[in-house]
């Protein structure tokens, strides 16, 4: 089965981001395909490069980054949702005249069209959050 995943919750603040992470891992272990993971609304915070959870807690940020690298997954973060919440990659930081970027390189900033495309090309879209 080809899945796409929509993540709407931020780590720590809601359980949904962690549940999404567990679902993606389980789906891959069961030989399903993850076409895309799309991060929207507060879910964009999952792609932070600078979030630093306490050392005795599970680091979901690092978890996503490792999972992406391990399976070459397509992680897309909504560019508009990210910009209004203070998450920018290098080129967006430059474009908006900000001193710093703060997005992990395992994620790509793009538009909602990527979510629409994923719904058309996947058997199922599973939403986590809301």
């Amino acid at each position, binding site marked *: 089965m080809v899945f796409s995943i*929509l993540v709407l919750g931020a780590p720590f603040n809601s359980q949904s981001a962690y549940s999404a992470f567990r679902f993606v891992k389980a789906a891959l272990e069961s030989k399903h395909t993850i076409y895309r993971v799309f991060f*929207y*609304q507060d879910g964009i915070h999952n792609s932070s490069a600078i979030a630093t959870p306490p050392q005795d807690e599970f680091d979901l940020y690092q978890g996503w980054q490792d999972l992406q690298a391990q399976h070459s997954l397509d992680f897309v973060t909504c560019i*508009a*949702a990210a910009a209004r919440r203070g998450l920018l990659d290098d080129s967006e930081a430059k474009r908006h005249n900000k001193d710093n970027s703060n997005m992990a390189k395992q994620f790509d900033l793009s*538009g*909602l*069209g990527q*979510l*629409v*495309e994923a*719904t*058309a*090309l996947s058997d199922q*879209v599973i*939403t986590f959050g*809301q």
Partner: protein
Amino acid sequence: MNQPKTNKILIVNQSAPYSSGNAKESLDLALAAGTFEQDVSILFTGDACYQLLAAQKPKEIDSKNLSQMLKVLPIYGVEKIFVDEQSLLDRNIKGVDHNLNIKKVSANESRELYQNATTVFRF
């Protein structure tokens, strides 16, 4: 973009207009889906009914007018817009902005909207 099949997307809106970003961000998704020529329906239910009131004055809280923004939907090919009749009754909302061209639906009809959709997004 590859050649996607035409999807039947249902966007269910349950949030009051200015209490969170849900109204704006669900509208953004509807516009994107319309732009990519998907078959999109929108259902307003619960407190989302308040998004449909005419004469909103959100300037006083430095917000953009949501019912004005909803008016652009048909330009993007999104014309199937529904509101749950019971939600309106529960809130004693007598009329929605008539410029929005919204169809009232019963509980049975909204169930059909869910059944006919290939993907449902809730906000």
